[in-house]
């Protein structure tokens, strides 16, 4: 699924690959979505964008655990073009 910019972005745009893991994949019905976001956008901006547009998006938490480029990240982290964002359910390994 590709979610395009919904309005022209004066500062330009960036494209982020967003992974949905485990129960979040089940909720949305797919494990990967591409987001086109205005620049600058934080992780939290991307989560809001996603929740508003994917199927059952409102069932995803407003402030989920997140990773950027395979490392745990903060909601305030600024995204770069080409980043891999991931929404992680509460960790349950071991």
């Amino acid at each position, binding site marked *: 699924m590709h979610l395009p910019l919904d309005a022209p972005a004066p500062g330009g745009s960036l494209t982020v690959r967003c992974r949905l893991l485990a*129960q979040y994949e089940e*909720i949305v019905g797919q494990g990967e979505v591409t987001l086109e976001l205005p620049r600058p956008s934080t992780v939290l901006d991307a989560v809001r964008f996603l929740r508003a547009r994917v199927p059952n998006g409102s069932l995803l938490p407003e402030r989920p655990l997140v990773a950027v480029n395979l*490392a745990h990240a903060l909601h305030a982290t600024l995204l770069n073009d080409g980043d891999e964002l991931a929404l992680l359910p509460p*960790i349950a*390994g*071991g």
Partner: protein
Amino acid sequence: MPILTPDALDPVALLAEVAALGLGGTALFVGSVRRSAEDGPVAAIEYTAYDAMVDAEAGRILAESALRWPETRVALRHRVGRVEAGQASVVAVAASPHRAEAFAACRYVIEEVKKRLPVWKKEIYENGSAEWRANDGSRAAAATPAPRAP
């Protein structure tokens, strides 16, 4: 070696991976699938992982251990897919010249794994129902109901 494997875990292979003649003390932790849960007898756990991040995050955890205990060698393996009750889901091992450090490093690795490694579990009950579980024991979202009787 990759951290994740769909095959049975082999503690002896992991012990051999860290063994060295100067390392006289080795601590090992095995986590196994428990049979009992609030929702009834557990038949198995289905583990799902964010594969690429598991290797990256485990690499960071093992590197942190090496910074804290430079003489101690650590290794880790975690199952993915279905693991039957009683079978091992995770093994961490630490070999050191000093047994206190072997215990400390092994404990560090398993505690960080439980907090940070992007792995999720769905408990599969004997009645065929299944439920995502967080490590604090709470129910997670998106339960899978038991199949209806035909």
